[in-house]
């Protein structure tokens, strides 16, 4: 147990990440490589410096914003396939964020699917997850323990709205911290079902919100906070900001606040109290425990490799169910207690 699982066939673990020798490409490499397939545009999956990138059509504009116009980025539609070496490669929706994909590789080593990050809950900002039958499934396990089980999005959005309303009644500014890519747009899109009020946003949020609007995603109107003159009162308003803005001088403009974090990590009370947020909203872009197990069953995979978060216990649990299972390490933090982008 707890041994590094060495993937011998279709994919190899290398110091730069997962490598496919038959197709001569890497998936989400963490060092520069000649050819990188990117599952989605989050920083721990899309690293700068590779010679050529391949991603989905919807992901490409986000990568361009991240890497600048000089990067060589090719894209294709979900479901379209491409021959690379002796493999056929295709992208399929992962339901994680806009443009996120699972990678399917078919070749002499069988049919492999690399999930990237994914969720099964509906999300108005991206294409819904598609089950792709395969022999070997590499699944993320950011929340791979049975304590992680998500309430419906509707329930969580009602909680957020209830908090916002109660704060407004008390003349407080509601400051909701969330990741700039994915979570903030999902919140803005979901909140549009319960409110029409504009939301103030931190400057770091703007590029990705613009990118989502350009992709046609419907969201509440947003106003950059810094456009407002000094002394403007934000009492009663909702402000979205990245967690890194917490405690910075930027916050001084907001007056009396109540703050919250939207993240699957908030499922655990101690984690919220450690970070001293008033409220934790359990809204995650990752699959919870039941969704992970359900997805694995639906793929029909005879072997499952776990990566990210609670990979070791998750793999051990699958072994107990009689599945062939192991762990793939990442260069990133290995547990959800750490500073991942949830």
């Amino acid at each position: 147990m707890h041994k590094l699982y060495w993937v011998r066939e279709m994919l190899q673990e290398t110091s730069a990440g997962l490598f496919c020798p038959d197709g001569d490409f890497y998936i989400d490499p963490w060092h520069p490589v000649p050819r990188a397939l990117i599952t989605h545009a989050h920083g721990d999956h899309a690293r700068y410096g590779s010679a050529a990138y391949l991603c989905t059509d919807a992901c490409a504009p986000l990568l361009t914003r991240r890497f600048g116009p000089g990067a060589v980025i090719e894209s294709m539609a979900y479901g379209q396939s491409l021959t690379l070496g002796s493999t056929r490669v295709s992208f399929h929706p992962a339901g994680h964020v806009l443009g996120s994909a699972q990678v399917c590789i078919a070749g002499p080593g069988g049919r492999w699917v690399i999930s990237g990050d994914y969720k099964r809950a509906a999300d108005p900002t991206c294409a819904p997850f598609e089950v792709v039958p395969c022999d070997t499934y590499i699944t993320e396990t950011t929340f791979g323990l049975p304590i992680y089980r998500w309430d419906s999005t509707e329930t969580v959005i009602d909680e957020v709205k209830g908090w916002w309303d109660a704060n407004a009644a008390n003349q407080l500014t509601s400051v909701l911290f969330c990741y700039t890519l994915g979570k903030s747009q999902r919140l803005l899109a979901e909140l549009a079902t319960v409110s029409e009020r504009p939301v103030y946003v931190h400057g770091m949020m703007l590029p990705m919100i613009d990118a989502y609007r350009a992709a046609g995603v419907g969201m509440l109107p947003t106003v950059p906070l810094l456009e407002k003159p000094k002394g403007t009162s934000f009492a009663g308003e909702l402000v979205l900001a990245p967690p890194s803005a917490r405690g910075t001088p930027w916050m001084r403009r907001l007056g009396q606040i109540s703050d919250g974090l939207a993240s699957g990590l908030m499922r655990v009370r101690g984690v919220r109290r450690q970070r001293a947020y008033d409220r934790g909203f359990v809204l995650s872009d990752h699959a919870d425990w039941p969704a992970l197990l359900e997805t694995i069953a639906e793929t029909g995979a005879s072997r499952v490799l776990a990566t990210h978060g609670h990979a070791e216990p998750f793999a051990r649990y699958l072994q107990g169910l009689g599945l062939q299972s192991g762990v793939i390490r990442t260069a990133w933090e290995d547990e959800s207690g750490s500073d991942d982008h949830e």
Partner: protein
Amino acid sequence: MIRFAQLFAAIDQTNSTNAKVAAMTAYFAAAPPADAAWAVFFLTGRRLKRLVPGSSIRQWTLGATNLPSWVLDECYAIVGDGAETAALILDQLPSMAVDADTSLARWVEDRILPLRNAEPDDQEGYVLTWVRELDRWQRLVLFKLLTGELRLGVSQTLVVRALGRTADLPATTMAARLMGDWTPSAAWYGELLSPGVTKDDLSRPYPFYLAAPIEPTTTPAALLGDPAAWSAEWKWDGIRAQLVRRAGEIHLWSRGEELITARFPEVSDAAAALPDGTVIDGEVLAFRDDRPLPFSSLQQRIGRQTQVARKARDIPVVFMAYDILEQDGRDVRSEPLRVRRAMLEQLVTNAARQAPSRAPDRGAAIPLLPFEDPPVRALGPTTLRLSPLVVIGDWEDIGRLRGESRANGVEGLMLKRVESPYGVGRKRGDWWKWKIDPFTIDAVLIYAQPGSGKRASLLTDYTFGLWDNGELVPFAKAYSGLTNEEIAELDRWIRRHTVERFGPVRHVEPIHVFELGFDAIAQSSRHKSGIAVRFPRMLRWRTDKPAAEADTLTQLRRYIL
């Protein structure tokens, strides 16, 4: 229960003390008195004891979900709280919302307390049935009630403030009424809020005044200014207690607000010589041959309900008085310390004069400790004693005296401003404790596991080893002493340098050296190293020191006298 769980959630979901007080005040206004009584019980940190062990809840959780037990261990390591782990995992059992809000009092009195006498199988049946009626927060509250872990995250001060607001009474009255032993009921709650003086007011102690520590990084000279404004006493290593003599009855209260009168009959005997309407503050101390015995001796008198008389002969105790809070029924806490001290000296002298002569040892004035100048004498029957004043010359003298603490069986010095009133709680400024420097040793971090509560998911529980014949032998666990930044840095390092995992416990590369401090040391057959240390904590991260240069078990053993 629904209302109480909402109160728990409301308190939990804000960092604003005003919002917490508002939530409690709203609860007290709406709840029936019997419920409010139990709510006060839990809000003030009291717990239902010995109901259901955490292991039962584990077993029931596993039984209801068919998960292997090691999965529960992994979950616990992330959640850091047994009741919450169970509530989160059992979230997969649907909640059948019941319309009626069964009252908190009914829950506690008719359901939870009777569990104590139920067969284990029946307990499981009851609890799993109840769980289905409750939502996630209510389940969390239920499990915390069952395991006695319920903490609501409000200080006593805030509860007192909310109750004072509810009853329109001064906070001091409320604080006194919440001290000590009481049984929550509608009648009790009525008395708690009643405007007049109640019968139970007579047995109650006052809130204890606590000293703030003088940190090793500073000195009295820097902190306290002119030594003439200060009075010094030894810091005794016993049980802080208040002796209450009112209406012909005697009550001895520990600082934990536990009634310990019956454990120390010799103290009650001695207190019979005090006049009615007296409350004194002091230390119950194991004491023989005019010297304090180590705290470990006193521990044999704590919790022991049988053979009290025999134990009292083997390990005699004294009540070392250092303050007076009530004289002739009058609250004298606002008098300056120098005035209260004079009252106390008079009181103890008078008590000695009229004490029965059956005191076992000599009865006359006996020198208390050899280093007093001028000698302050313990008076009369030696169970009730006056904590001697240590004479302050200048801060250097007093520093030298502090250096003798360990040899004299005390923990250091107490420094009190002579003009200070007897305050409430740990209010900084007037009372300080200047403890002796701990023993120190440089040890190597060898294991780490996740912490609990606010440290859930962070690797903050460390095990340290010392060298012995080329091997690192584990000898102490420590949790405190690092800054949040250091904890985060170490957490990241540990995750990347784990050699082996045993469930949530990680064996790490032996690289990092920490200077550990501890207060006492003794031989122990229960520890692999053969040594037990008291209150080990991290003093310093020795980034300058390679692991090979950490200390050895032999070096540690040298501290054992």
